[in-house]
């Protein structure tokens, strides 16, 4: 195997350990759903089963990220599948809903009827990368707004959320691996500045045109300047991935 950046695996193991803890807690709670009252608590079981499903999805997400880092060509070898971009985003909102709820963040998705397209399946993790970023940096009581439109040529997906102001000179660097904006570093030590780099890599693999922008109008919460952060992706309907 080729030499692999140690940081990738350190980060990966850290995430996996968190997931193992969550799985362990869920399976323990599931056991107790059964044992304590002597009767099966059906609602409790469903709740824990759902949280296990969410963790599994997140584990798959992190495995795919390692894959993108170590062997991006692999995804080019997958055959394009018929995928509906709306379904991909909708499904991901369910996965991230519990985490968003903890931070009092809501999802709103607006979409017209979107045609399915032929595209390589790695697009499935695009919303996870964006939502992971949005939840990390959005202030509480805010909204992640997803707008999906289609014309004869393209499907356009725009995700907007509130985030720490990104200075003009930082915008282009956001897609560079390891780069974190000055204000993002102020808000949280979480994050290693790789999310948007992965997003850029996947967009390149899928022939998606990616634009990232941050509004110049800002407002202050707890001495931090926030503004609207926007990720736009234009996906060709006749994709030649």
């Amino acid at each position, binding site marked *: *195997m080729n030499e692999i950046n140690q940081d990738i695996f350190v980060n990966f193991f850290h995430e996996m350990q968190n997931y193992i803890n969550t799985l362990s807690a869920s399976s323990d709670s599931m056991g107790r759903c059964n044992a304590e009252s002597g009767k099966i608590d059906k609602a409790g079981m469903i709740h824990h089963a759902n949280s296990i499903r969410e963790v599994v999805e997140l584990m798959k997400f992190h495995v795919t990220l390692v894959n993108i880092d*170590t062997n991006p*060509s*692999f995804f080019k070898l*997958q*055959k394009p*599948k018929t*995928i509906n971009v709306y379904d991909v985003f909708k499904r991901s909102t369910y996965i991230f809903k519990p985490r968003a709820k903890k931070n009092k963040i809501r999802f709103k998705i607006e979409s017209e009827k979107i045609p399915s397209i032929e595209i390589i399946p790695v697009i499935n993790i695009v919303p996870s990368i964006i939502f992971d970023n949005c939840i990390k940096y959005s202030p509480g009581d805010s909204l992640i707004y997803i707008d999906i439109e289609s014309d004869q040529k393209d499907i356009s997906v725009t995700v907007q959320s509130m985030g720490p102001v990104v200075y003009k000179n930082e915008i282009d660097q956001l897609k560079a691996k390891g780069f974190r904006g000055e204000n993002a570093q102020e808000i949280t030590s979480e994050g290693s500045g790789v999310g948007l780099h992965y997003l850029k890599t996947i967009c390149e693999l899928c022939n998606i045109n990616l634009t990232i922008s941050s509004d110049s109008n800002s407002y202050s919460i707890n001495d931090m300047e926030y503004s609207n952060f926007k990720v736009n992706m234009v996906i060709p309907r006749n994709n030649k991935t």
Partner: protein
Amino acid sequence: MIWRKKYELTELNDIVNSVNIVRDETRIAIIDDQNIALIPRIKKHNYNITHFKDIENLNDLLKFNIIICDIQGVGKKFGSKYEGAHLISEIKKEFPLKYVIAFSGKSFDPTYNKFFKICDDVMQKGSDINDWVDCLDLAIKNYINPIYNWESARRVFLEHNISLEEISKLEQAFIKTIMKNDITVYNKILHKNQNIYSNVISTISGIGTYLSFFHSLIA
């Protein structure tokens, strides 16, 4: 002078479009030393699927149309350090027209890309039921598509330096067999040219197997 009609591959499109995806008539083999928890659910979707922990020899796969093969832990009898990856390359050599999907937990490792490249598709371990259904439906759709199969065969012929004239003759026989739904058209050209095709006999016989399968679908 006798003018013979020259057939085009695109003329098969109407026939291709008239054939439905036949999940239960397409035989799928999965070779994986580990248990695949989703197999009962995959079968519930009407796929005709058989799970092998490993295979003894390639003939075990004769009757299957689509083969899903793990990269690791299988192909032990074939004695290569690349295990399942080596098995995949042997399957493709012996049965160039079988639709082969690499099923891998080693997708992070670029040393395996050369094996992934010879496959018709690749699927990561940990795929959910939707991924399986998408992957298998596409596999069946491509497997029953004569144009997909002919293009795979043509690549093998070119790699083995079969002349363009011979390839063109085979292509005409292939198209005509399907359009007339008469396997004897293809068999006739084989009898005439046995010596020319000796280097690509597995592909030639793969086309014959495919044509019989296709014939059974539209019969």
